[in-house]
Structure formats: structure tokens, C-alpha cells
């Protein structure tokens, strides 16, 4: 469905503007994602995960390389087509409180993508919003509240609802659960697994937590310093990771029992 070819993103360092050497955040990354499949991308902070997510979601233009959606390079599209493409590809950001407009009621936030990207009647829109709200296990009464009146778990559910309301084909979760405490995190992850089954979407979970990655997906990419160092198609446990960096990640985990699916 989506194919990434030689994707590269560099930044000019602001701290040392004199150095001509740009900082390479994502370095010549290629992979492809199939329809209706869960994927996970693991890497430490600064490995270029978020930059990659922003490029896939058509928010940040790549320096080099291309992203093909059904064979069309998305960064060759006109601005309007690029905007409409968000109906197919959605991104759920890490900081769910910050990702909600503080002056908008929850209903408005969830309904916004529907209004901009789908042509629904008032009734259809309300129906869709209520429907997705129940699917992320939230009550109707939060629709008229403001983001600051919700808990962290509720905020991240709202962000998930906003992305899923469009029934997109690809949803990227950029550390979407890492701010939550462990019990809430587990509930949200289970919810996402159910949603994925129901909507038949492709999910790409970006996380620093190898346990979360194993719990969410069979196909796991490991990213280090802007490069994908390992791609495992059928990962079920720590033993499936072979690259030295992946081993290092696993060995640095604090001792605990991994999630059992």
C-alpha cells in the first residue's frame, strides 16, 4: 500500500550554524507496508522515529527519496491533494493534551477531520462521532468538555478517536501511549488492537519500548541513528532479534515479565 524509497531528512544544525555538515535525522530508509497489517518501529530517542512519522503523515517534506501511496509519490501532489490525503493516512501524536486545541470542545476536535475531509450531513457527522466515541470507550458527557478537563488516558483516547473517525487506511502512532501509566497504557493498547481488527487498517506503532512493539505487531523495524538496522517479519519474543543494536536494546531493559498476548 505504502512504499518508502531512500527516504532521507537532514537538518542544518542551529547550534553551530558555521558547520556546513547537516545533521542527518533519517538516513536512506526504505521499506514498504502492506494493507491491513500491524507494524512496529522501535528506536531510542533521537533515532529519527518522529521525523519519519512526520514525513509519512505528509507534515514534513523529505530532503530526499519518495513516499509512494498506491504508487503515487505523495510529495509530488498539489497542496490540496496532499491535504485530502490525510483522509487515508493519519498520525496520532505523542503529547495528546498538546494535540487538542485548548479552546475547543471535544466534539469539535473529533468532528474536525470529518468536516474537512469527508462530506457528511450534520446527522451522519454526529452519528460517526458518537459511534467512534463508544468504540474508544468514552462517555457522551465528555463531548461538551474542554481538553484540560480530561485525564491523560481520556485525552489519548480522544486523539485516537479523532484519527479513527475517518477510517483511514494507515494510522501512525508516534509514542502515543508512552505518557500514560502502565495500567492505562495496557488498556489503550488492547483498545487499539480491537480497533485495528475492526477497521482493517494498517497500523504503524512507533515506540521506544520493545515490549510494546512485540505486543502490538509481528513485523518490527528497529531504527538506530536514522537507519533501519533490522526488520523482523515474524517476531514473537526477544530471541527473534539478531542485530547487535537490537540485542543491546533488549539487554538494557529492566527485568520484568513481557506482555503475553
Amino acid at each position, binding site marked *: 500500500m505504502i512504499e518508502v524509497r531512500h527516504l532521507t531528512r537532514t537538518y542544518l544544525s542551529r547550534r553551530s550554524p558555521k558547520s556546513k555538515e547537516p545533521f542527518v535525522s533519517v538516513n536512506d530508509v526504505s521499506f514498504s507496508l502492506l494493507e491491513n497489517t500491524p507494524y512496529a518501529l522501535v528506536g531510542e530517542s533521537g533515532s529519527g522515529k518522529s521525523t519519519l512519522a512526520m514525513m509519512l*503523515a505528509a*507534515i514534513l517534506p523529505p530532503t530526499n527519496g519518495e513516499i509512494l501511496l498506491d504508487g503515487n509519490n505523495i510529495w509530488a501532489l498539489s497542496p490540496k491533494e496532499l491535504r*485530502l490525503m490525510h483522509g487515508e493516512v493519519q498520525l496520532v501524536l505523542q503529547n495528546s493534551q498538546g*494535540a487538542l486545541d485548548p479552546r475547543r470542545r471535544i466534539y469539535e476536535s473529533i468532528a*474536525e477531520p470529518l468536516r474537512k475531509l469527508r462530506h457528511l450531513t450534520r446527522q451522519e457527522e454526529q452519528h460517526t462521532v458518537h459511534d467512534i466515541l463508544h468504540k474508544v470507550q468514552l462517555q457522551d458527557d465528555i463531548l461538551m468538555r474542554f481538553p484540560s478537563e480530561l485525564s491523560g488516558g481520556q485525552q489519548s483516547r480522544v486523539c485516537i478517536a479523532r484519527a479513527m473517525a475517518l477510517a483511514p487506511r494507515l494510522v501512525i502512532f508516534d509514542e502515543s501511549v508512552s505518557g500514560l501509566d502502565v495500567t492505562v497504557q495496557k488498556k489503550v493498547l488492547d483498545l487499539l488492537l480491537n480497533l485495528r481488527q475492526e477497521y482493517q487498517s494498517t497500523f504503524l506503532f512507533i515506540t521506544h519500548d520493545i515490549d510494546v512493539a512485540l505486543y502490538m505487531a509481528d513485523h518490527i523495524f528497529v531504527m538506530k541513528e536514522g537507519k533501519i538496522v533490522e526488520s523482523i517479519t515474524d517476531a514473537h519474543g526477544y530471541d527473534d532479534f539478531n542485530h547487535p543494536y537490537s540485542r543491546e536494546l533488549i539487554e538494557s531493559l529492566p527485568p520484568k515479565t513481557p506482555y503475553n498476548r
Partner: protein
Amino acid sequence: MRNKLLHNPQAVIGTLLIAIILLMGVLAPFLAPHDPMAVDITKKFLEPCNEYPFGTDQLGRCVLSRLLYGARYSLGLALPILAFLALIGTTLGMLCAWFGGIFDRLMTIVCDIFMAFPPLVIVLTLIGVIGQGAVNLILSIILSMWVWFVKVVRSYVLIEKDKDYITAAKISGCSGADILFSHILPNILPLLVVYFSTGIASIILMISGYSFLGLGLGNDIPEWGAMLNSAKQYLYSNPMLIVYPGTCILLTAAGFNLFGEALRDILSPEEE
């Protein structure tokens, strides 16, 4: 929101002061006991009495009537000036911050040039070239203040546009105009209202200040600053002629400042 306003003493006092000044201006023709321009040299420097509650000035004009009509000049000039400044500031500030690039750099240079001149220099030069009068005063105050409004709006938008909810809005399919007008503007509006309402206080002070210097409106016009100007010669013999218009200016500026500061406390989103 209304409850918060009512429970904030600053807001209540500020609103009351603004309301009093507004009423003075609107109801001046009904409240004023005399024509504010009527000169009667035989009645100059009268003590306060039933006919002239605040006495008369050096030309025998009713001080109370002049003060009441003065509210019209202060607000009637300051409000259109503020409206213009708000419009120019918001439009240019948002465009600069949103598009950035060469347009933003050029605007920054223009702003820096204007900011390098003290406002008094700009007003003096302009009034010297195009002459005295209300319209010229409005023009020169706008010209000396617009860059500040552009810079303030620009900096507010710059802070706002890097926030995560703007990225989220892009992902939700919002166009640039959608984001500017339906996300950024509502979020910076409280800050702008605060800036504008403290801005109006300084505009009122400017108008009175320039009139006091004899730059704005003529001495015959019952503007508070102009009244101060003509009363300053009688500072020792009739000090009340200076105290009355001075108090009016003080209360008006204080009213808008108190109101603006209270709004800032009430509208800051963290406390919602």
C-alpha cells in the same frame, strides 16, 4: 466567565470606570448644564456654584460641560485608532508569522526602522508637515504605533504555530486559512484583547499628551489634554482647572488598564 469577571475586583472597578466614561461621552448633551464652547468673559474663574458645579475657566466656559464633552474626544479618537491598529497588527502579524521567509524578514526590517524613531518624533514631524487636526492626529498616532502591534501579534502567532495542536490540525485536513482563523486566532485572542485594552489606555494618554503639547487639537476644543494645556498658566491661581481634566485622564487610563489586566488573569487558559 461572567462569574469570574464579577468576582474579580480589578475587573469590576475597571468596567465601572469604563462605563462611567462611556456614559459621560454618550450622555454629554443631556448632562452638560451649558454649551462647552460658550465663552462668557464676565464669568471667568467662577467658584463652583449651583449654575456652574465645577466653576468656570479663564474664558468663563463651564468646566463640567467641557469635562463631559471631553470624554467624547478621548474615546471617539482612541477607539477608531485602536480599531485600525488592531486590524493592521493582526493581519500583518499573522501573515508574517505564518508565511515567514522573505516577507517576514522585510517586515521585520521595516518594523525595526519604525521602532528606532521615538513616537514623539514621528508625530512632531507629521503634524509639522500635514498640519494640526483630529484626522492628522489619528494618522500620526497610527503611524507611530502600528509596528508595535504587528510585532506583538507576530510573536504570539510564532509561539502558537509550533504547538502540537496545530500539527494535529494539519493532519485533520485544515488548510492554512483554517488554521490561522479557526485555531490560532481564537487561541491568541485573549492575549490580544489584553494587549488592546492596555493599548487603548496608552493611546488616550498619547492623545491628551499631544494636545497638552499643543500638537493635537486646538485649545478651544474641550479635550482633556488641551484643557490641561490652557490651564497650566493658572496653576497657582486656579489649580482645580488642572486637577479636573487630569483626574479624568487618570481614571480613563486606569479603567482600561485594570480591565485589561483583570482579563489577562481571567482568560489565561491554564486556569480554565
